[in-house]
Structure formats: C-alpha cells, structure tokens
C-alpha cells in the first residue's frame, strides 16, 4: 500500500512541473525583465512607461471600461439567470442562444461590432432610415471618444456576459428550491425572496464570476484594437504595442506587471469583500 | 474452509482510535452480523476485511490464509455495498458477469453462473436493461447477484438494505436469508438495525466505540445482554434500566425486593418491557404518562420512582395516562447490572 502514498504525487507531478515552467518561471522572468535594463537593476523601464503619453490614458481607459462593463454584466446576467429559472418551455434553446458568445473571442467580438458601428455600418443605416442622421457618421474615431467608449462597452458586454450567466445559472442550480418556497410560505414576495434568499446564497458564484471577469477585463485589448486601433489606448494594448511596434520587452513587461498587480489586487478585494463564512453555506 | 480470523486488528485515524485490538472468529459458513450505532467502527472493520482500508496493526486470515497485505482482488471475497455500486454503464447482465469475466471464466461458465445468480434473485427479466431503469430494490438484487455469481468463499455486506423502504426491506431480508442459507457462504453483514441483525444472523457482534461489547446468538443476546449498552441497543423497545438501592444483599424498590450479589449500595435492574406483569398490589409503583396501542401490545411509558420505564401489556388492558399501576417483573429474567461499569453481574462478559 506504499504504492498508494506515491500515486497522487505521480498524478499531479506533470501538471505541477508544467505550471512551474509555464506560469511560475515566466512570472519571475517578467518581473526580472521589468526591473532590468541592460542587465542592471533599474527603474528605467518604469520611467519610460510613466513618461509615455498613452500611459495615463490607458490606465484611465482600462479602469473606466472595467467600471462600466462589470456591473452592467453582473446585473444583466442576474436578470437573465432569473428569467431562465422561471422558464419551463424553451429553456434549453434560450439558454443556448444566450451562451453563444461564450465561444466568441474578443477579436471576433470587436470585428462584429466594427461591422455594426463603422461609418457605413448598420447602426448608421438604421439611424438614417429613421431620419436621425443624414449620412455616414464616424462613431469610432478618436474625435468621438464618448461613442468610441460606448462601442467598446457594447462589444464587451455582448461578448462576455455569457460566462457570468453560465456561472450564475450553475450556482442557482445548486440552491435548493425549498429555501425560496419556505420564504414564500412565510410571506416573502418575489423581490424579497430574490434579495434575502437567492442573492446571499448566490454570493460564492457572484464572487467567482466577478474575479474571473475582472481579471479578463483588465486584459481587454483585442476588442478595442479591432474597433479603433490605438485610438483608445488600454493597458494590455500598450504592452502589445511596446513589444511589437517599439520592440521594447522591458516596458512591455512593466505593463504586464502592472496589469497583474491590478488583477491580483482586485481578486483580493473581491475575496475579502464577499467572504462567506463556511458555516453560512448550505 | 473459509472462516475468517480477525487477529488483534487496530485502526487509528491520527490520534483517534476507530478500532481497538479487535479479535474475532467467523466460522466457515456462518452468518455474522456486526451491529452497532453509526461511528462504532463496524464499517471500518468490514472494509479492513475487504482490503479497502489498511489496518494500523493486526492481521486478517481468510480460510487460514494471511491476507493482511493483499489487495482486495486477491482475497477471494465478494461485497455488497450500501449504495449498491452497480456499474451504471453496463447492463445488468454485464454487471453480474463482471467478477467472472475478471477471473477469466469461459463464456459458457459466465453464462451459467449469471443465469444461476439471476435466478436466485429473480432478476432474469431485467438482464438486458441498464441500472438507471431499475428501482432501488431491483438494483439491490443486481448487487447481490453480482456478488453471488462469483461463488465467493466470503461475502461482505455493508448495510445493504438501509436504502430500501420499510416494506421492501422486510421482503429482501427474508429472501437474502433463504438465498444465503442454501449457498452456505461465510457472510459478514454490517447493520445498525437490530431487527435486521436479529432476523438474519447466526451470531451478532455488538460493537460500540471500536470494541466488541458482546458476541452471541441473537436470542441469547436479547435475553442476557452482557452490558447495559447491549441491552439498550438490542430489542425494541430498549430494555428498561431501573436503579435500586441495595441493603444487606437485597435490592429494594417500592414493595419489590430481590436478593443480589453485589458489594455496592446501588444496582441497576435490566428488565424487558414484556417481562413485567401488572399485579393488584405490591411490586414497583408505575405512573403512566403515555399509552401507545401497537396492535399486538399496548406500550405504556411512565416512571418508576422517577425513572423512565416502558411496559408492554395486553392490547385490551384499560389504562389511561395518570394511572398508577403495580408492576411485578419476573425475577428470573432480570439482568442485574453493576452501575459503575455497566457490566452484567454473574456473567462472563
């Protein structure tokens, strides 16, 4: 039976080695890249990043995007999940349609909304038909930052609400119906039941959805890139640009570190703020 | 020749002891029930016999062979699990044939044994179905048939009936008994249900906190429990325990007296509910609190000198809560228990 002692380690060994090589090592290397300049420890890369015109813009834009997109997605997904709960007919079909965007990449989503929002696109066609605009309007230029921002938000919400929905629906399935029924018998209306029963019990799922989505939202870049090129700078987009256009690994790495630090901080905040004590879980 | 010898088995989980130096012999062809409340170690013991769990120390012999270090497949036994553990992706036929196929039996042999086992358990009509289409009772039959098909020297059963509803449980119980009687397989059967153990077993080992309190034939266990725990656990309603003061070798409570041999000044009388007669006067004073007509008897719950007691009287007796009755236990059937250690007096425990 000594065999049995070793077996679990043998089973996790490949995955562990892999994750060390492709997660831990690059993580350390990224940090090293960021803090090194020609083999000497220095903050040159940080200074370069901070001195860049796009730096402040990209930080502001990224945070603005996250703040606009995440709450919208959580609310929409909650509404959709509650609708799914209420459905008997057609539930599977509707659910499938709503999770289609799950398989759509951010680049593709950007292209989809480019087709809709470009100056000779469908939005302008509809507005034209309604007599609201005379000819093609350019919504996505840097001269129209508000409509450009709205466009990015639309694309992000369209694409990435599905994953939140999946997590919430899965979470809802784990909540026994009896809780809601008990509350109903004691006189709680639908809104009270949602607020006092469903929402608290759904907290762990909301937490994982928030963490996952926030980390991914700080990584946003291809959507923006597809819609506007570098007209709307965001953090990872800048990392990509420094790597590819300016051929500067160091500054790209500093951007990477920045994104990771922000993601990690967001995760910690979520875990703290939405902690559910184990004894309160069903 | 396939008795089981359990030799000084000990099992610890960290600091906690699940089994303490447990020694037990199961004879060839015997049906032994391991009876006890949950957490008493009975399932752990069964799993150690099966080889699914490793003992901390001690040895297991099956048919004289030391199997202590062998994996389950080499111990020559079969097992029926609490949740049936019928393989959901195989037909009933394939389930029953599984053990035989693993042994490398020929197709003809497999067919013959599957048909025999299926016949014994009356599952022939379902052989081509998948378990998901079967009821709990039917699945349980498949699990038993799968175990019997390999004609095991030893059959282990872990609470096999606990997931069935009451009526089905009764039916399966008698059926199991007749099937196992005819096959003569050495069987160890774990249960927390004392009626099940009483009805099925040749002998019962009552377990409590990792030790065997008593091992005996069902009737002997019922009549002469070796400890207070056994008396309270075996039989329904449980045995009454009434403390009586002792003076000059005589236990006395109310007008009831009985000579006892103890050095202490208190003794516990263990009395079965049905071993008590209601008399006109004298005996133990009993204040009735609740009357429950059970059909065959009328069960009275009340107090004897402030101590809870239950008495079974004739179903047509006219008794109401608040009545005071005089009780006369039949002296020969009282089990006298030392209140200090809970052991019966005058018995080899």
């Amino acid at each position, binding site marked *: 039976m000594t065999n049995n002692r070793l*077996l*679990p380690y043998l089973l*996790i060994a*490949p*995955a562990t080695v*892999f*994750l060390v090589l*492709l*997660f831990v090592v*690059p*993580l350390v*290397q*990224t940090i*090293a*890249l960021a803090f090194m300049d020609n083999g000497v420890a220095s903050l040159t890369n940080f200074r370069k990043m901070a001195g860049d015109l796009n730096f402040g813009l990209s930080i502001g834009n990224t945070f603005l995007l996250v703040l606009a997109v995440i709450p919208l997605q959580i609310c929409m997904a909650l509404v959709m999940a509650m609708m799914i709960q*209420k459905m008997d007919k057609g539930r599977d079909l509707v659910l*499938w*349609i*709503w*999770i*289609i965007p799950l*398989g759509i*990449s951010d*680049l*593709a989503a950007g*292209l*989809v*909304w*480019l*087709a*809709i929002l*470009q100056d*000779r696109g469908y939005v302008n*066609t509809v507005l034209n038909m309604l007599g609201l605009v005379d000819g093609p309007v350019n919504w996505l230029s840097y001269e129209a930052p508000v409509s450009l921002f709205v466009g990015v938000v639309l694309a992000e919400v*369209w694409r990435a609400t599905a994953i939140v929905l*999946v997590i919430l629906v*899965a*979470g809802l*399935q784990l909540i026994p119906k009896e809780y809601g029924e008990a509350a109903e018998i004691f006189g709680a209306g639908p809104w009270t039941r949602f607020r006092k029963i469903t929402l608290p019990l759904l907290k762990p799922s909301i937490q994982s959805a928030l*963490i996952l989505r926030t*980390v991914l939202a700080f*990584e946003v870049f291809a959507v923006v*890139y*597809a819609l506007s090129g570098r007209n709307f700078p965001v953090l990872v987009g800048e*990392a*990509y640009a420094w*790597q*590819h256009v300016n051929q500067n690994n160091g500054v*790209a790495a500093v951007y*990477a570190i920045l994104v990771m630090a922000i*993601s*990690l901080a967001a995760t910690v905040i979520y875990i703290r703020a939405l902690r559910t004590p184990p004894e309160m879980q069903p | 020749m396939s008795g089981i010898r359990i030799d000084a088995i000990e099992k610890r989980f960290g600091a906690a002891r699940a089994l303490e130096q447990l020694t037990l012999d199961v004879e060839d062809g015997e049906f032994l029930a391991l009876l006890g409340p949950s957490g008493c170690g009975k399932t752990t013991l069964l799993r150690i016999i099966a080889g699914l769990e490793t003992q901390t120390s001690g040895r297991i012999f099956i048919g004289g062979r030391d199997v202590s270090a062998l994996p389950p*497949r080499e111990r020559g036994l079969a*097992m029926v699990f*609490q949740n049936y*553990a019928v*393989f959901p*992706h195989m037909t009933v036929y394939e389930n029953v044939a599984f053990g035989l196929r*693993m042994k490398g039996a020929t197709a003809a042999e497999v067919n013959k044994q599957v048909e025999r086992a299926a016949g014994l358990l009356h599952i022939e009509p379902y052989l081509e179905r998948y378990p998901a289409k079967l009821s709990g009772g039917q699945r349980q039959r498949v699990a038993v048939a*799968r175990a019997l098909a390999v004609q095991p020297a030893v059959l282990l059963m872990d609470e096999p009936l606990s997931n069935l509803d009451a009526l089905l449980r009764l039916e399966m119980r008698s059926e199991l008994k007749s099937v196992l009687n005819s096959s003569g397989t050495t069987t160890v059967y774990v249960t927390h249900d004392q009626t099940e153990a009483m009805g099925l077993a040749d002998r019962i080992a009552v377990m409590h906190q990792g030790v065997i309190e008593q091992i005996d034939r069902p009737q002997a266990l019922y009549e002469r429990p070796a400890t207070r725990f056994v008396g309270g656990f075996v039989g329904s309603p449980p045995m009454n325990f009434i403390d009586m003061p002792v003076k000059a070798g005589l236990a006395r409570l109310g007008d009831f007296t009985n000579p006892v041999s103890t050095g202490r000044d208190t003794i516990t009388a263990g009395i079965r509910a049905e071993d008590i007669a209601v008399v006109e006067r004298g005996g133990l004073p009993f204040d009735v609190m609740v009357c429950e007509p059970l059909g065959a008897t009328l069960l009275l719950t009340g107090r004897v000198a402030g101590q809870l007691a239950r008495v079974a009287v004739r179903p047509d007796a006219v008794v109401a809560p608040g009545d005071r009755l005089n009780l006369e236990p039949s002296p020969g059937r009282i089990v006298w228990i030392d209140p200090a250690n809970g052991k019966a007096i005058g018995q080899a425990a």
Partner: protein
Amino acid sequence: MSEATVSIRLRRVMFWSGVAMLCAWVLVPIYLIALGAFGGRAGVFRWPKNLLPWDSGLAAMQAFLAVEGVWTAAVNGALVACLTMLFSLLLGAPAGYALARYRFAGQDAFRMLVVLTRAFPLAILALPLTVTFIRTGLYDTPLGVALVHTALALPFTALVSSSLFMGIPRELEEAAWIFGCTGLQAFRKIVLPLALPGLAAAAIFSFVISWNEVFAASVLTVRNRTLTAYLLTVLAESPLHFRFAGGFLLILPSVIFIFAVRKYLFAMWGIANR
C-alpha cells in the same frame, strides 16, 4: 376575462418579449457580421445598407479563403487548438483525479497553485517566453503556442475533471477492486467510461480557449500565425470586408463547439467554482 388574468397575461407577454429582446441582442450582431462577411467589397461600401441578405453570396467568402495565408493560419489555429486540447487533458485529468480521490500532504498547495493562475492574466506571461522559446526552437511553432495555451486551459481542465471524478462514487471503483480489478483496470473499465463525456466537454472547451486566444499567439509567432493572431496583425492594413469575413470565420467553430458541450457547461462551472 377578469382583471387578474389580464394582468397575468400582460406579465407573460412582457416576460417573453424581454426574453426575445435578449435573444436578439445576442443573435442580431452575429447575423450582421455574416452579412458583412458574405457581402463582399460592394456590400461594405453600399450606403445605406440593405438589412436583408439579398446582396450576399459565397463569392466573398471564397475570395477571403483564397487570400494567401488565411487558409494556413486557419489550419495552424486548429492544430494549436488540438494540441492544447490534448495537453491540457493529459496533464489536467490525472491531477483532477488525484484531487478528487486522495488526501495527501501538499494537496492544498497544489490546488492553490491551480486557482492562483486564475488571478493572473496568463497570456501576458508569453512576453518573457519569447526569449526562452527562441533559444529552445519553440518560437514561431504551433507547439510553442500550444504550450502557452495549455497553461491557460490546464487549470480549468484540472478543476473540471476533479469535479467530474468526484461525481463518480468511490464505491463503484471499490466494487471493481473487490471483483478482481487492479487499480488501473478499475480506472479503465469503470471510471473512464463514466467520465468520458464530461472530459470530452472539457477538452472541447480547451479547444475554444486556444482558438480564441490572441495575445500570446501573436507575440509568439511570426510566420506560423494562428487565425486569430493572423487577423490581428493584418487588421490595420486589410479592407473591411476582409475583416468581417475573418471575424465570421473565427466565430463559426466556437459556436458549433459551444452547442456540442452546452449540456456539460453548467455542471462543469457549478462545481469548478467551489
């Protein structure tokens, strides 16, 4: 009709129109990019647009596929995704089994490592890997990209497969041992067949993760682009109809795959999040 039934009807109508609107919100953009993809150059510049598919034809898509590099990139993308699927399953499923079936020292540390990867934007870690990959000859190869994508998909596969294995009662395996199986036989005959559909779903999801990933794929390749990376790099200089065709081609396999795994998706996430 009483007032109550009217209000119930009204609420039903409102409910279902809400559902329909949300369905349209998802489907209409897909329809529109399909119009763009099949409309060709003429369709893109037409003003105002025709909202019905009368201008469309297969010619535009054929032209797109004939562009040099597109087909190769699509094949590359599929190859990388298949490799990712294979790796993440081969590495993740055993780890998931260990997490589900054994208690061992270091278990929590391992689980922590896996969960921690979720708090990091993993694709960005491709930056320093360019150097390592150039040195080891993995740079600009499908294998190299697949390795990074496996790092993305592996935590997911490990957690999902662990929950899958947890869903298979240990007793089934024990019964197999009792009835003559070795550990490996019991796994092959009992556990694997029962876990297979779920594992397949997890594998397909890894495929989608890889197919869609753009950052690491574009950083780690120059000539052997995946479709996503290829489209990103030629984005700036390509005409609109070309971009739309590419976008549509990106969406297509993902949508089909999501359809294939839809039943398992919820079970996977429900437990993977615990």
